[in-house]
């Protein structure tokens, strides 16, 4: 049972409520007068979302994925007064990574195990609930996560742990169509929110720890028919035998041994991993998408996968209409540390190598660097100072364990960054969790967890996190605030001069985006490890975030969606 435990009293005049029994046993329809009564999300709305101070239509705010919200009612001068407007509790007390999506006063949130809730964004009152009938076969690593929905026209789109794409009626939560994306028995699963653009629903796949072959697929938004597939692992995955990483450091590859292994076993592309589990950025002008590709399988054992393992640990760009390859940039060739590319790319203008402003792209790595690219050809322009300690890079994993920093939970994990285009700053949340890397070579275990060894947290070493602002035109760190725990979840910047992000200890904080001063905090009672979003209804701006803790880092679980606003 879900319930609303708090509300902004007197906000809504009582409306006639008619409870209707939904056709599906999994969906409940509640019909009432809604703000504006507008459910449809047009392509024009999606295109203009960067300047939309009422809605929050994309997981990362807009197609550029800047997570910069244009409303400024809540700002640095009044954020101290921010307080909860309402709290909605779901019936799933497990890890929460959802970004609340808001369309004309209706909010869509998801939970672990693929439940979707539609809420009245003014009050937190539940409008409908969809519980995905998760099959017995669901293969997932690192938690039963779901990061939210995509919205398009009159539908809401959800990826599921059993590797399905589900389209729901935005008004009722009833299933319109369901499409099998891949076979979960082989290690495929979905945790990302899909991306909706130009009649297509884009989605990648999890499974980098299970010997999958990664992909990005495009489906017809109306029918669910598959339009194109891009395999993130080409049949020739060998590459150029690159010996140094994107920052120029030697990765200590034994190229001759790899070439011998290639001769013996052939190209390992069929089980090489390369998941894509974060949203692509969309360049509407170039008609391209940009996404990052995860680690090769098995994570720690390179002996079974000779070559650069293209396009793992890479930025990749495709033509939106056809799914054809445009360009890529690989950060770590032949990764054996699981320091893959996860945090979603951000499109923004940057200063190029020659000092001229160019169409740029930012990606934050688990290495702790922010990488700045020219998005016309994916080339690297610069990389930032390291945001977390780096030690013994690139020490190879050993049987007894090699210590290297960052650990596999290091730098910027999947957490999306936010960019303030006026300050030319990008904001990232980081993890510092020392680990040892152990290698143990085993053959592919048929869809089971396949790490090629183990990561082991060093319990005697201090762990912490930080919030870091990086000047992406220089690569210099502008400010940095240490947190008591490694950070995972996401961040939001606003035109009010604020940056919002949460911590595993339950604290949700607002920082001055220019200086990093902590201006406000709220104790949420469970880990705040999800990306915040913002919206405006009836002239009131809200900040909203999920507090459900985190499985991967074992932060206290909860089940709350908390919306904050200023007092009357």
């Amino acid at each position, binding site marked *: 049972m879900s319930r609303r435990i708090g509300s902004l009293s007197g906000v809504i005049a009582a409306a006639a409520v008619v409870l209707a029994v939904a056709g599906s046993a999994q969906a409940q329809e509640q019909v009432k007068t809604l703000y504006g009564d507008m459910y449809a999300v047009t392509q024009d709305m999606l295109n203009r979302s960067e300047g939309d101070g009422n809605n929050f239509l994309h997981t990362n705010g807009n197609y550029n994925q800047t997570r910069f919200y244009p409303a400024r009612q809540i700002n640095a001068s009044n954020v101290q007064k921010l307080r909860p407007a309402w709290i909605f509790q779901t019936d799933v007390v497990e890890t929460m990574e959802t970004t609340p999506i808001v369309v004309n006063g209706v909010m869509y949130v998801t939970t672990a195990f693929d439940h979707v809730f539609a809420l009245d964004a003014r009050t937190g009152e539940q409008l409908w609930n969809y519980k995905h009938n998760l099959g017995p076969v669901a293969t997932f690593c690192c938690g039963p996560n779901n990061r939210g929905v995509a919205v398009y026209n009159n539908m809401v789109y959800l990826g599921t742990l059993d590797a399905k794409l589900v389209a729901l009626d935005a008004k009722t939560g009833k299933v319109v169509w369901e499409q099998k994306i891949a076979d979960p028995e082989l290690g495929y699963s979905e945790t990302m929110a899909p991306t909706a653009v130009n009649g297509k629903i884009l989605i990648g796949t999890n499974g980098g720890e299970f010997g999958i072959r990664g992909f990005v697929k495009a489906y017809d938004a109306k029918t669910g028919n598959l339009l194109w597939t891009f395999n993130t692992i080409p049949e020739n995955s060998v590459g150029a035998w690159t010996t140094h990483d994107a920052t120029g450091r030697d990765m200590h590859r034994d190229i001759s041994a790899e070439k011998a292994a290639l001769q013996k076993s052939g190209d390992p592309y069929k089980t090489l991993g390369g998941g894509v589990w974060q949203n692509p950025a969309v360049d509407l002008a170039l008609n391209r998408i940009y996404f990052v590709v995860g680690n090769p399988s098995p994570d720690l054992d390179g002996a079974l996968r000779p070559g650069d393992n293209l396009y793992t640990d890479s930025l990749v760009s495709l033509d939106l209409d056809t799914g054809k390859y445009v360009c890529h940039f690989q950060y770590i060739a032949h990764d054996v540390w699981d320091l893959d590319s996860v945090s979603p790319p951000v499109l923004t203008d940057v200063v190029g190598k020659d000092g001229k402003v160019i169409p740029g792209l930012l990606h934050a790595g688990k290495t702790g660097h922010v990488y700045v690219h020219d998005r016309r050809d994916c080339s690297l322009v610069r990389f930032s100072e390291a945001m977390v300690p780096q030690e013994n890079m690139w020490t190879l994993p050993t049987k007894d364990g090699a210590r290297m920093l960052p650990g596999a939970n290091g730098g910027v994990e999947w957490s999306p960054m936010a960019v303030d285009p006026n300050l030319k700053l990008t904001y990232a949340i980081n993890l510092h969790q020392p680990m040892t890397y152990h290698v143990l070579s085993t053959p592919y275990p048929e869809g089971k967890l396949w790490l090629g060894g183990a990561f082991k947290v060093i319990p005697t070493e201090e762990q912490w996190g930080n919030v870091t602002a990086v000047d992406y035109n220089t690569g210099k760190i502008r400010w940095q605030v240490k947190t008591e725990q490694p950070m995972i979840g996401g961040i939001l910047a606003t035109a009010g001069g604020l940056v919002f992000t949460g911590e595993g200890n339950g604290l949700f904080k607002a920082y001055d985006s220019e200086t990093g001063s902590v201006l406000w905090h709220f104790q949420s009672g469970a880990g705040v490890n999800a990306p915040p979003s913002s919206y405006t209804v009836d002239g009131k701006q809200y900040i909203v975030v999920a507090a459900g803790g985190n499985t991967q*880092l*074992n932060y206290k679980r909860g089940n709350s969606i908390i919306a904050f606003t200023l007092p009357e």
Partner: protein
Amino acid sequence: MSRLSVFKVAGFITLATAVPTLAQTATPDISDKLQLCATCHGEAGTPAKPEIPIIWGQNEYYIYVELRDFKAGRRANETMNPIVADLSKEEMQALAKHFSEQPWPATSFPSDDAADRKAQDAMTAGACTSCHLGDLHGKSAIPRIADQQPVYLEKTILELKNNVRQNAPAKTALFSTYPDDELKALAVYLSSR
């Protein structure tokens, strides 16, 4: 050998009771198999011996995968391998579904403060809840390990560590980084959740 004999005898017994099944095709009759299972895993879910796991209430896909691995020889066990040898995929799916739908039996395995402290450190280092979840009940292919029989847990953890049980290489790699006393503490801790 004695269990194999029971299986052969039980094979002649056909009961009319329909059993819910996961199988996509015709529902197989697994009633005789259930009788055999009960001889070791218990009539009411409490196993006959401490080294035998509780399978009532275990996750469906995990049970199926283990049966599949016993059949394929990826998990060696002198009792289970011959029992599973002749099972069809549909029968294994039906058995997995059946046992997953039974209630986990009440247990009261004792805790130990010293073991708990050691085990909690070990769990932090191994990030156990990443897969087994906060309640240690797992999901799908990830087994429930809370309230499991401690002797079975210790035995299977050490077998994984020592590569005797070979069907979960990620566990073998992880457990091989721990001393035995920490793994024994882990078994005590998990059984008393």
